């Protein structure tokens, strides 16, 4: 059953420098009880898309649709959204220190979430808060319920955020880079906790990250975003072993091999993400793509089905059968790209690197 279906979402912010097109026609869906991983570099529109679901982007111009549990979210008023926030869709954020109110005890903050949606009294809400802290494996929950956020470690704080998010047994939990601010061992524990809680509560999850390694073992499906658009979407296995999009390929190259996901070297994608005020023409990735061709400069590729793997779609002009991460496939991509270069595309830095046979990805 589809829990959340987002269709052709666009989000832009009018600013003094021009309109920031943070999300430009994004479509994806989340199945009940499943986990969607959303990956992309900083500024690709991951957070903005998530916040838009909950109406937490003041000042944004929004078009498209987002149907949650049969109801359209984007046309709801604040009062209707308020009933969904925290109750049906809960969200946790990157920095658990700045995401908790520094002046209130953590137990109080959890109880407040409960009382915002139910009519339990203060004492019962606090008892529930203790139970929730126990559920997320916080030692001595009766004592920690009285702690202030600054009295806890980063990992503990994020557990508090998770406890708060689970308070009303949401149908969907959106975790926006839940472990980015924490060190590696704590990251692994928290991801494990999220999966454990998912089994307990039966909720769906959207886990946003810029580190593919984080969601390797957790996500059912992976959505790769670039410059406010979906560039590729597939089940987790396909994403890691048979990606089609050069950007996904690049992200995999960026995964340290120590995570055991892919065996390739740490090769960051050259350049940096484009300004969202003046997004490149054609394929938004073309200024950085090692395989950019003449058509990539003019025409924006749509998401098309990649026949080999189930629900695999990718937005790239390279032939659909060119999937995979090996050196052989990269060479095949380079050959194809060279054959389709033109006057302008041969001047792109990415293509120069590819033509010279440099080890862009290998």
């Amino acid at each position, binding site marked *: 059953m589809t829990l959340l279906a987002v269709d052709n979402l666009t989000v832009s912010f009018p600013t003094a420098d021009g309109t920031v097109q943070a999300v430009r026609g994004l479509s994806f869906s989340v199945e009940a009880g499943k986990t969607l991983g959303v990956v992309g570099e900083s500024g690709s529109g991951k957070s903005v898309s998530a*916040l838009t679901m*909950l109406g*937490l982007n003041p000042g944004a111009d929004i078009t498209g649709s987002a149907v949650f549990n049969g109801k359209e979210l984007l046309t709801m008023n*604040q009062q209707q959204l*308020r*009933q*969904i*926030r*925290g*109750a049906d869709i*809960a*969200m946790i*954020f990157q*920095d658990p220190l*700045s*995401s*908790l*109110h*520094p*002046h209130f005890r953590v137990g109080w903050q959890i109880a*407040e*979430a409960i009382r*915002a*949606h139910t009519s339990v009294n203060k004492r019962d809400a606090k008892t529930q808060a203790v139970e929730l802290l126990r559920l997320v494996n916080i030692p001595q929950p009766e004592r920690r319920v009285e702690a*202030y956020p*600054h009295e806890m470690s980063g990992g503990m704080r994020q557990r508090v*955020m998770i406890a*708060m998010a689970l308070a009303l047994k949401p149908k969907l939990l959106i975790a926006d880079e839940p472990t980015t601010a924490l060190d590696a061992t704590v990251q692994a524990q928290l991801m494990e906790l999220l999966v454990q809680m998912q089994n307990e509560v039966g909720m769906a999850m959207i886990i946003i990250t810029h580190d593919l390694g984080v969601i390797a073992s957790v996500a059912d499906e992976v959505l790769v975003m670039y410059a406010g658009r979906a560039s590729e979407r597939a089940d987790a296995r396909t994403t890691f072993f048979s990606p089609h999009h050069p950007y996904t390929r690049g992200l995999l190259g960026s995964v340290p091999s120590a995570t055991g996901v892919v065996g390739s070297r740490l090769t960051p994608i050259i350049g940096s993400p484009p300004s969202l005020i003046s997004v490149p023409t054609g394929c938004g990735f073309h200024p950085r793509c090692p395989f950019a061709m003449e058509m990539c400069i003019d025409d924006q590729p749509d998401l098309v089905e990649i026949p080999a793997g189930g629900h695999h779609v990718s937005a790239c002009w390279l032939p659909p059968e060119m999937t995979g991460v090996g050196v052989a496939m990269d060479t095949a991509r380079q050959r194809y790209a060279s054959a389709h270069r033109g006057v302008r595309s041969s001047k792109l830095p990415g293509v120069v690197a590819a033509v010279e046979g440099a080890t862009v990805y290998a």
Partner: protein
Amino acid sequence: MTRFLIRRIILGLVTLWVIITLVFILYYARPGVDPARELAGRAVTPALLANINKAYGFNLPVYVQYWNYLKRLVPIPGQFNLGISNNNHLPVTTIIAQAVPIDISLAVGSAVIWMVLGISVGVLAARRPRSLWDRGATVFVLTGVSMPTFILGLLLLYVLYYLLTIHGIAIFPKPGSYTPITTNPLEWAHDLILPWITLALITAATYSRLTRSSLLEVLGEDYIRTARAKGLSERRVVYRHALRSSLTPIVTQFGIDLATVLGGAIITESIFGLPGLGLAVVQAIEVQNLPVVIGIVLVASFFVVAANIVVDALYAVLDPRVRVS
């Protein structure tokens, strides 16, 4: 928390001691100054000088003078002594004791008005930035900040007292009226309403500006996003979560302003003829009544130091992180 407060109180006492010592050096032990002559005021006679020299012990070594000066300031009944006014020969403590209730009355009443008014206008402006409300608030702030107290005070007196009274509507009391709160609380408030409004309107502007900017900043914080993501009402988000954090700069400013009014609101007191510390110090300066001036300087410093301690205590109440540092 207790340790934090004790540290703050000790710090306050040290500050007070430094001020007291500076006053001593400035008025009694400055080279080239004859303190007896300064204290004597305008009607100097050799006999008076001799008297003062004897009473204050100005012929003793400086450190003995300093020690006696400190002893006179220890707040124990019978020992506490700020000297004698050289004008009407009343003890300075008596003069101050008469004036201070007026300043406390002025401060309490106007503080309530300026806090409520200033913070409300600030919240209104911050909730709808760049709206008509916000622009209105800006005009209010600019007027309040640039309006001199004496103009506003005289304006209020002219319109609300003079014009109304000559048209037979005598709602506001004539300047110089003051009823102690212990005599009649209603009369007390009625007599003070115009000075309160004067002080409050001038001061409130600062609070609107502070509230607006600090609330706008807090509303962009991550934990406010969390509060909204929990499904709290916007009202609760603003008043319970955001305003709570915005109070820190407001409390700081409040300490300064409260101490300032307590130490004597010179202009307001002069306009409305209220015999508070401000008026007393002005009159004392005019007639070179140094004992009174020194006494009021010391009392005003005490208010500033005390206000600082209260502000620090409030910080600790508001922000648990302060209690540990």
